């Protein structure tokens, strides 16, 4: 078709000229492209392959050599909102160690030798003439001799019908008390025998044998203050607010005893805050290396495109080569900011072959039901 190369004439050096009859025939040229057959995998020098190659090549040259033939018509033809990074100064005042104030040891001012404060006269306050520490150990009770009647007991030996009146010296003033009838009191208490299984009975036995003073930690306490500290520590642990976590400068982000929805909790404890692509993009300075090259609009079958009023682009193209570096986050942010709400497509060109890539913002899902 257009293969003749006229090198004889000056102007014809570059042209592959069609004759007028060829031009006329080209008006009714087919617009179909022949379908390419299946390729072979391995060359085997067969006649069949040779023929197919020849056919493919002929088809190839024939398509390529067709020239453009047209009708000779009359030619018609714009923040800077500085993000305040408020640093939350965690003003955690130092929580004072709330140590229980030890009750004043009353020993030193006392006459007499060393005795512990709990050995002081228990009723010393109510006794007007006893002064502070006037008696030195005289009214020391033997607590094991005080009998506390077990009114609920059903066993014969412990059963009492009435209680003896207390020593008149223990009673204030002229108060006189007679024998106390136990019966009405017993009616007020539940005397039903608790039925216990063997393991429960065993447990009960051990429980009765349990003595707080046998505990090693308790024995280490030298005074009530230390004992109170121990109790407080144990309580904290039990209730989920141990002192070593909560009585320091740095406390846990959330108190596990406080109810909170999962979503709120996740937000509360998150150290890395979620971000999105356009964050900080307005502050970026424009650079020479990455810029949007042109807009792409959809064809008229889908959208209304007019040069005077193109409408919203379908996408914006940024063209580069495979030899160029991959755009960094800064470049992607910049392009996204320049583009607005239109997706940016990066067209990477490789010797006539183009691959299109786009970067999409993505939020990691949080496993929370609203």
């Amino acid at each position, binding site marked *: 078709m257009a293969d003749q190369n006229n090198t004889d004439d000056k102007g014809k050096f*570059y042209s592959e000229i069609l004759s007028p009859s060829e031009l*006329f025939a080209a008006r009714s040229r087919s617009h179909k492209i022949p379908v390419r057959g299946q390729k072979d995998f391995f060359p085997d020098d067969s006649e069949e392959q040779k023929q197919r190659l020849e056919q493919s090549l002929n088809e190839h040259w024939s398509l390529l050599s067709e020239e453009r033939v047209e009708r000779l018509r009359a030619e018609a033809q714009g923040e800077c909102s500085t993000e305040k990074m408020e640093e939350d100064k965690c003003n955690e005042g130092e929580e004072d160690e709330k140590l229980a104030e030890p009750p004043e040891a009353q020993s030193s001012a006392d006459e007499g030798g060393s005795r512990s404060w709990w050995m002081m006269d228990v009723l010393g306050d109510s006794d007007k003439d006893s002064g502070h520490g006037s008696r030195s150990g005289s009214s020391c009770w033997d607590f094991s001799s005080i009998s506390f009647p077990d009114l609920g007991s059903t066993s014969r030996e412990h059963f009492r019908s009435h209680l003896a009146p207390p020593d008149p010296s223990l009673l204030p003033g002229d108060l006189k008390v007679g024998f106390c009838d136990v019966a009405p009191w017993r009616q007020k208490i539940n005397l039903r025998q608790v039925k216990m299984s063997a393991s429960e009975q065993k447990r009960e036995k051990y429980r009765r044998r349990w003595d707080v003073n046998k505990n090693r930690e308790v024995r280490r306490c030298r005074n009530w203050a230390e004992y109170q500290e121990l109790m407080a520590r144990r309580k904290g642990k039990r209730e989920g607010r141990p002192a070593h976590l909560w009585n320091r400068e740095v406390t846990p982000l959330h108190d596990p005893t406080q109810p909170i929805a999962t979503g709120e909790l996740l937000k509360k404890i998150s150290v890395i805050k979620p971000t999105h692509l356009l964050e900080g993009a307005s502050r970026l300075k424009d650079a020479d290396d990455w810029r949007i090259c042109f807009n792409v609009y959809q064809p008229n079958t889908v959208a209304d495109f007019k040069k005077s009023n193109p409408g919203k682009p379908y996408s914006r193209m940024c063209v580069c080569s495979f030899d160029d570096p991959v755009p960094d986050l800064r470049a992607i942010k910049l392009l996204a900011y320049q583009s607005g709400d239109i997706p940016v497509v990066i067209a990477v060109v490789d010797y006539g072959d183009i691959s299109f890539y786009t970067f999409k913002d993505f939020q990691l899902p949080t496993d929370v039901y609203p």
Partner: protein
Amino acid sequence: LILYNHLCDSAPLVWRMQDLRAVRAQGLVGALLGSLPRTPRQNGRLGRPLLLLPEEEGLLRERRAPARPVCLMCGCSQQDWGGAELRQKYEEEERRSFEEQSVLALEDRKSALLRAMTGADSGAASADDALRRRLQALDQNFTFPQSAMAVQLSTARAGLSYCPEARAFLQACGPTGAEPRCDARYQVFRDLRGRGFYLTSAGKFGGDFLVYPGDPLRFHAHFIAVCVSLDESVCLLDVLAVARLGSNVKKTVLLCSPGPDPGVCYTSLQWSGMI
């Protein structure tokens, strides 16, 4: 003589049919860039010009193939356009073409009418008469408007010649005629081509070249060639990535390194299990 030129980005482009054939005869495939005149709005099959890889251009030069880049600056192989004379010539040719096409158009119309007549059923004798009368009138009344004339937009001319304004702009960019940019790539290309393989660019496969056992029109590529110089250390993650790519497209990855002596060292990556 193979002619090609460099446009702004110094890519070597081949425009004339004879040059395309000659390039392929040397086993160089190139890449078609243009739209096909028959059906421009598709990119399954592209048309001229043909873009040459820097390695392909290098080979042409090395083989001292009769190939010459068209130099815009010196204009030595460029014909000097005598503007007015050329335009006169063109208009004269156009007039001649128009006359010939008018004749052809009339004949075409007549044969169409004749076909209509002979194809008509026997009963329509009156229709036949009408057609015969129209045939007779045709000679007097037929007009072939100028706007309907077919003209050619020559691909080669479009690619290889420039109006003075365009020429000035292109001169500013200037052809570099540079050597192939990476020596390792060129060595590998030359070696593989010398062994009879056909090569195209493989950027979107994560490699340097796609290697075919025969003409790419008929055969699938077997290898993805990745060119690495022997003293360059390769990150293991890159090797794994390219092996993955290769297995996804069912091609073997070849690590190609030019050696100290003329020769290239090839290492293929194979996905294996441990037995």
